[in-house]
């Protein structure tokens, strides 16, 4: 791994100042960044740890919205949202393994936007708001394809706000070696709409399956999507599964999530 300067500020302002340096990068749990740096795929001059900033950690629940601060780790989210938002808690409790969940954070996961990351599926289905030090961004605008987001250089995800659904569920078809989803689907049912967020499947990264959202809004049952088909054209094809297989999984996982809601 290339060497870098490590800093751990205790306020957001200090972190933003430190990130103004060229090639400086934020570090949260390091569960993605450290493996990529070991492979020398990344060469920051400075890493600014966000884990010393007390204001970036915590979960609050008010007026039907669950707000998770950017540097809150997965284990904490899984534990603290178990009763307020069980669908999300269930998603987070299946990310990686216990050690990964003790370090990895929502901000790191959302900012990284791995095409197989779990959190983005929930953020899309729930139409979450991604809050940064500078602005608020709707999930639809935030995720911009594999590993691409609306974030500017040095911009930090400080909070993610989820409107809490009436019912929700995440179905993750695991790639058995990495345990990332080969395809994962988050279904969120609200009074007036249904959200379906799909991860792991598309070359364009996380997406909303809008046809299913409409069909499920009219009739919330797995039958409602039985006549729909997911085109395989834009799906990921690799040694773990063909594009057609993933397209098929999208429908199967959506049906299972609806049934489990």
């Amino acid at each position, binding site marked *: *791994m*290339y*060497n*870098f*300067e*490590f800093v*751990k500020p205790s306020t957001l302002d200090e972190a933003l100042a430190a990130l103004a340096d060229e090639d400086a990068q934020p*570090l949260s749990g*390091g*569960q993605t960044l*450290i*493996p990529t*740096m*070991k492979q020398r795929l990344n060469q920051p001059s400075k*890493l600014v*740890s966000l*884990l010393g900033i007390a204001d970036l950690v915590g979960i609050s629940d008010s007026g039907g919205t669950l707000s998770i601060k950017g540097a809150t780790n997965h*284990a904490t989210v899984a534990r603290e949202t178990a009763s307020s938002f069980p669908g999300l808690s269930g998603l987070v409790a299946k990310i*990686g*393994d*216990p*050690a*990964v969940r*003790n*370090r990895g954070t929502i901000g790191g996961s959302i900012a990284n936007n791995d095409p197989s990351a779990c959190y983005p599926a929930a953020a899309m289905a729930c139409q979450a708001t991604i809050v940064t030090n500078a602005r608020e961004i709707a999930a639809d605008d935030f995720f911009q394809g594999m590993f691409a987001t609306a974030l500017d250089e040095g911009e930090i995800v400080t909070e993610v706000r989820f409107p809490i659904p009436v019912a929700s569920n995440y179905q993750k078809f695991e790639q058995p070696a990495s*345990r990332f989803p080969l395809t994962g689907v988050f279904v969120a049912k609200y009074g007036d709409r249904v959200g379906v967020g799909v991860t792991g499947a598309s070359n364009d990264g996380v997406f909303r399956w809008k046809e299913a959202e409409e069909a499920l809004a009219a009739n919330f049952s797995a039958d409602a999507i039985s006549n729909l088909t997911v085109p395989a054209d834009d799906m990921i094809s690799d040694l773990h599964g063909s594009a057609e297989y993933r397209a098929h999984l999208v429908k199967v996982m959506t049906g299972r999530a609806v049934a489990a809601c």
Partner: protein
Amino acid sequence: MKISMTVNGKTMSGEAEGRTLLSTFLREELGLTGTHIGCDTSQCGACTVHVDGKQVKSCTMFAAEADGAEVATIEGQANADGTLNKVQQAFQDHHGLQCGFCTPGMVMAAVSLLETNAKPSEAEIREHLQGNICRCTGYHNIVKAIMAASGQEVPAVAAE
């Protein structure tokens, strides 16, 4: 930079660069080689230690992030009189190890599980060990050892 941490109850310090991993720091700077490096790609869990009471992969954390923290490693697991603790003893009794390479991480993960779940089911044990890979035992004896360490009856496990 100088890094200090409490390791197994003792204050220890040493030099680290930004890129120094906690696993490297423990092994090379503090001489605590019980923490093993199996993969160095965050997959195998042989490097599992506890930082401020939480199980982490020490190869996937910078030493600088543990500055000032309480760290527990396999070297601190035996009882004060030098006898094996109940998890270690159960691994021995139930043949929960063969080559022993994964064992420090397995023990640290098991201890962490039993702290929050005193009587885990077989399924809970297997789920908790998802980030710990063993190339020898086939896991069954590890699961049995953890059942035994938690004072539960040791069942014949699935696939036997």
